[in-house]
């Protein structure tokens, strides 16, 4: 492992069904995530992904990479743009710092045009 190394990409394919499942599992029933008419009435192009669903995708990116023995210490995500179901969401990351067993990562989510709609970072402690 070295600083600058990219971790394996995770591509998610969110669907309207997934947004409904996530709304139920998280208990977030804000209508912009499943009611097209409501979403448009508040100026959105249609229903959008929950920010925290995108955070969960990026969490999966990190926990897939670190494996079982390692521990996630911090995980931060900022939502810069909206993402729509029916479009792939690319989860990517790279190593930004290595200090003994502690590794810092930059993580981000890209839409299909390569625009970073979601940015963040994580700190992990390797076993």
């Amino acid at each position, binding site marked *: 492992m070295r600083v600058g190394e990219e971790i394996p990409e995770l591509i998610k394919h969110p669907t309207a069904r997934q947004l409904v499942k996530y709304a139920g*599992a998280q208990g*977030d029933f804000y209508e912009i995530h499943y009611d097209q008419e409501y979403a448009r009435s508040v100026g959105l192009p249609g229903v959008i992904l929950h920010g*925290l669903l995108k955070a969960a995708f990026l969490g999966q990116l990190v926990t897939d990479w670190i494996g079982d023995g390692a521990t996630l210490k*911090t995980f931060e995500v900022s939502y810069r743009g909206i993402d729509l179901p029916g479009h792939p969401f690319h989860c990517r990351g790279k190593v930004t710092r290595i200090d003994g067993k502690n590794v810092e990562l930059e993580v981000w989510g890209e839409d299909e045009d390569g625009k970073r709609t979601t940015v963040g970072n994580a700190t992990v402690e390797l076993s």
Partner: protein
Amino acid sequence: MITTAEAIALVKTRIGVDGPEVTATVEAGHVRRFVEAIGDPNPRWDTEAPPTFLVAIAPVTVHLSDAEVYGKGWLNGGNRFEYFAPVMIGDQVTAKGRVVDVYDKPGSTGNLLFIIFETDYSNQRGELVARLRGTMIRR
């Protein structure tokens, strides 16, 4: 419609004041539905809660309902999790949150109200397992 200044004054009265505690058991079935919903098949989540599951214990806006008198909707600006101990299936987790800051910024369609909140999650042994710091925006 309440003004920005009135909304800020109202939410400011909540700064530093702990909201109502929410306690829930981390149920296997709930975690299974959550990992199915996010599409994460990692077997680690058979016994442990995945990193963002804590937000399913209590709505992130539970301590922020005062702000709903302002604007027409919520936006999630960001979330930062700090983890101190794993959350295992069967744990009883208590969420306790508070507003830590509130301010406004002009946006493209009017003023945006930013509310920074913090939620502490502790387990049945009283151990702090995680802290969530988030930015919710009213627009």
